[in-house]
């Protein structure tokens, strides 16, 4: 097929929008940690962007989108972007192959950024670089292949419009595994750990919401009615979840905090991601409202268990993504995009979602756990107690703010 300039225009813009999400995660996280780790936290995300950008063009894209090898991984046909060009590609009938490649690139980078929640304020920077490079290769690339690159999950029938499984379940459960391996921050649960700067977190969340339009609506890979649907469901679910988290936490004895509001918004954006192009706006309200309340509850549960998954990537991205994958199996409507969910009586789809999401949970958690242990035993994951005490900004970067 031929290139459509309108579709190309939208995916170019979408890629830029998704790009800003990676620093957005950094700002969001940065505002939440203690002041002495503010710069480090932003930097982890931004470095993830650069690192994965290079990995992806060299071989990551090929592993994820190369011709299928046993349902598990792509082959090396696209090594160094070989055979990826200006013409429409295998995955993109109306836009340049290179554009599809870079649109996928920004998904891989933001996933890596989300993971940094799990070892916030205590990761050794050099080990982080090693970890990130391996993680994106052995966790993200295969999972992207399974769902979008023609791997087993897509063959099996699981649907994931914009990456609920690939991006959010993977990063959320990876963060949990990392938190368990690296251990709690010194003083966790004993000292109060005040967020460095809440307005930065709000700005980060605003950039996430903004960029997410590219993420979900761009996943239509065209500028058409479906892109419009995904745009609307995304906004609606985010709004519903933000209000839901705010109200539930308020009713639950707290105050309607700004951080609750924005955390809810992110939970809603996560939850709608897999179904953005399959459900109606009214479905999106329900998906979002449930996501806000659910992720809030899971965050409380985590805190009760004294698990220091510091910035709640697990509660929000992991569990929010899981809910979204199931919700897609519930609320999908054939009229939108040809897929029916439970409420239209389609049990098969729901089962496919359970299996798809379930295996993602297991794969991401287990592989990350093992990788974290290996790195910890070899080069060490964690900074010294002294370094943690003075903060990572000074100890890892020689900077302060």
């Amino acid at each position, binding site marked *: 097929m031929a290139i459509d300039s309108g579709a190309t225009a939208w995916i170019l813009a979408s890629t830029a929008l998704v790009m800003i999400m990676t620093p957005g995660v950094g700002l969001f996280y940065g505002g939440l940690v203690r002041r002495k780790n503010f710069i480090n936290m932003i930097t982890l995300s931004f470095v993830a962007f650069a690192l994965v950008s290079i990995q992806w063009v060299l071989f990551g894209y090929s592993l994820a989108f190369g011709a299928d090898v046993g349902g598990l991984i792509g082959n090396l046909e696209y090594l160094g972007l070989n055979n990826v060009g200006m013409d429409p590609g295998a995955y993109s009938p109306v836009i340049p192959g290179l554009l599809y490649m870079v649109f996928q690139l920004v998904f891989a980078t933001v996933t890596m950024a989300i993971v940094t929640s799990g070892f916030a304020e205590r990761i050794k920077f050099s080990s982080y670089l090693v970890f990130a490079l391996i993680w994106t290769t052995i966790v993200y690339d295969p999972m992207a292949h399974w769902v979008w690159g023609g791997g087993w999950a897509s063959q099996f029938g699981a649907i994931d419009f914009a990456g609920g499984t690939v991006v959010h379940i993977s990063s959320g459960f990876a963060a949990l595994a990392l938190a368990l391996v690296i251990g709690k921050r010194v003083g966790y649960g004993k000292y*109060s750990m*005040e*967020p460095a700067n809440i307005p930065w977190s709000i700005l980060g969340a605003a950039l996430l919401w903004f960029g997410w339009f590219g993420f979900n609506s761009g996943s239509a890979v065209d500028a058409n009615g479906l892109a419009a649907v995904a745009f609307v469901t995304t906004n609606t679910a985010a709004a519903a979840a933000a209000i839901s988290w705010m109200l539930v*936490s308020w009713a639950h004895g*707290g*105050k309607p*905090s700004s*951080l*609750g509001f924005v*955390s809810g918004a992110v939970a809603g954006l996560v939850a709608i991601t897999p179904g953005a192009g399959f459900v109606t706006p009214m479905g999106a309200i329900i998906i979002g409202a449930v996501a806000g309340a659910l992720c*809030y509850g899971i*965050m*409380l549960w985590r*805190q009760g268990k004294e698990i220091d998954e510091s910035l*709640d990537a697990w509660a929000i991205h992991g569990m929010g993504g899981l809910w979204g994958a199931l919700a897609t199996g519930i609320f999908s409507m054939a009229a939108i995009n040809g897929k029916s969910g439970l409420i239209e009586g389609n049990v098969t789809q729901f089962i496919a979602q359970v299996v798809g999401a379930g295996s993602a949970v297991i794969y991401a958690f287990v592989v990350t756990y093992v990788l974290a242990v290996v790195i910890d035993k070899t080069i060490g994951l964690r900074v010294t107690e002294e370094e943690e005490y003075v903060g990572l900004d000074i100890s890892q970067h020689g900077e302060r703010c």
Partner: protein
Amino acid sequence: MKLVKAILKPERFEFIKKALEDKGFKSMTVSEVRGRGEQKGISLEYRGGLMTVDMLPKLQIEIVVRDSDLDTLVSTITESARTGKFGDGKIFVIPVEKSIRIRTGETEI
């Protein structure tokens, strides 16, 4: 000489400064502090957790004066800072043995 250390409501500052100027007290050092006296605390929530923050922002003014000016200074601050409510603040008077002006090196005792 005495160091007069006054802990005040930040929003009264311009007013107090004016009053001090009128009485000829120009020099001063100011810093932002947090404090509590008899005011009740307020509890803060952070993503589900609770922390008590009862430390409200205050302004601390420090002025070093000759002994002979002490009473005027203290009463000027007291009067200009008073609103009659909790949180109006406190003044502490501390002895100073020596004061040196760096530019000239001149020392006062």
